[in-house]
């Protein structure tokens, strides 16, 4: 469970996030909103790349804002970036192993786990392929496999379907839905693809101009007139 409590972020005079609160408890939750709504900023606060002006983030009962970014990863936080971050000169397997290198678990156990997760994403046969030789989708899948190793608690994907074809997006969605069963981790997804969000996310948080405008079961949220207004750009409906 991830408990976001009154997070405020300011960049100079701009309030990027304004007292955003939400308790995400569904196995797969979504964060949507128009461009500049503060979605990635919220993810950056949770993963530690941006310091919040005020507020609290609790993941599985641990206060995350007090930890350095790499410590959050060691405590079970995973995230992907809008552009997948695969090292070109490492193999697929090595790109996944990086995630658990800090832990003192035995080498063979870590390798076995990495291979298991590569099998889940369908890259087991390409484990020795070098990162630079991968297609965009293979890179994305490697990123997903990396997020799944090391007993994660919370995995956050920032626009994972960006640049993927319809088929690839469907395959990725199917994969993300399995994550909770396979690893026990909760998943949070930012995406513009409302179809993907409504298919795989049980609950969704909607941000607009740094404010929470809706939060709850995805179907209800998407039916909310304020959400429609934010997306379609019509006059804001009376509260």
């Amino acid at each position, binding site marked *: 469970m991830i408990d976001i409590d009154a997070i405020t972020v300011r960049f100079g005079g701009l309030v990027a996030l304004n007292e955003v609160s939400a308790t995400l408890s569904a196995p797969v939750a979504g964060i949507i909103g128009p461009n500049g709504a503060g979605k990635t900023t919220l993810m950056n606060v949770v993963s530690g790349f941006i310091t919040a002006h005020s507020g609290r983030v609790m993941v599985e009962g641990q206060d995350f804002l007090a930890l350095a*970014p*790499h410590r959050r*990863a060691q405590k079970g936080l*995973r995230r992907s970036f809008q552009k997948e971050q695969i*090292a070109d000169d*490492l193999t697929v397997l090595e790109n996944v*192993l*990086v995630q*658990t290198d800090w832990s003192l678990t035995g080498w063979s156990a870590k390798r076995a786990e990495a291979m298991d997760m590569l099998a889940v994403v369908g890259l087991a046969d390409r484990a020795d392929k070098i990162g630079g030789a991968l297609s965009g989708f293979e890179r994305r899948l490697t990123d997903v496999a990396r997020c799944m190793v090391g007993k994660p608690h919370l995995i956050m994907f920032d626009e994972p379907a960006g640049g993927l074809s319809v088929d690839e997006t469907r395959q990725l969605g199917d994969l993300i839905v399995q994550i909770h069963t396979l690893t026990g981790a909760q998943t949070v997804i930012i995406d513009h693809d409302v179809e993907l969000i409504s298919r795989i996310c049980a609950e969704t948080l909607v941000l607009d101009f740094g404010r929470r405008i809706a939060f709850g079961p995805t179907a209800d949220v998407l039916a909310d007139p304020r959400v429609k207004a934010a997306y379609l750009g019509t006059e804001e409906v009376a509260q």
Partner: protein
Amino acid sequence: MDRSLLRITPSGAAGLIFAAASFVFLPMVLGSYWLAIFTSAAIFAMAISGVAFMYARLGMVSLTQVGLMGIGGWVTLRLNYLWDMPFEVNMVLAALATMICGWILALPALRMRGLYLALVTLMAAGGLEILFATYQFPNGGEGFWGVKIGSNAPFRRPALAQTPEAYLRYVIVVATLGFLFIEGQRRLFPGRAWALIRRSEAAAMAAGVNVTLYKTWAFGIAGAIAGASGALLAGSLGLLDDGTFRSSESIMLFALAVVGGARFWLGAVIAAVLFRVLPGLLNTWGVDTDLAFVIFGAGLLHALITAPNGIAGQIFDLVANLRGKKGKTHD
């Protein structure tokens, strides 16, 4: 245990064969003038492997390598005149001391990137240059600095390498071990962390990599390698001169590492040959050795414009192409 650690790549095999051939044949064919030059070249090849590794793996430009060699040399000479320990012990202690200096250098440097990091390391090199020029290198005198006027006290060369020929072999073995140490690091978890840091520091942090720790570790390794090279340099002559450790030499060493090809062992060898053997060659031909700078400049332009992986990268590409063509004709 990581199984990929002991995998021998074609390039690695070529490197080991090259080292073995140099070990056997170079001391057999070289006269005393060339022995000294090739010994120095082998020592600098090892030092270059340290800067090249930092540049190739982390994109960090260090312009202090020769200054750090000076620290290693200073510590070796100081220990030589202080206690009766064998050369190897002094060399290891010099490498450790220089590694610590590398870490200290890393502290401010880690907050900076690119040009600013290069400038910080260059300033450190400038500071060391002044220290060496002011205090000179120990030669058996009294006190902390250990400098005396007049002839030097005797220097203990390694027991295994009392002759110049044996010393060249000794240096080749140590340099090869240095290369293997760096390659071993690259293949294990530090290498994976470095690769991800180079890709993106944010991604590395998100993967649980302690970016500061691994960058500091890289500085430490480059420092230890520089320290050991400095010790070998001290061992080859039994004395050191502050003129060897000017900050301009550090810049030259880095530039040549780029010309040679920072990602490959061959790049460090080419860089060391350009740095030490080429001026020696010009000297024997009776040509002004400053001509070497012109050649270095041309080499640097060549590397920047057409060969991002340096001359070594071009050679390995050429070999790969030839093998590819050969493979096709057999099909």
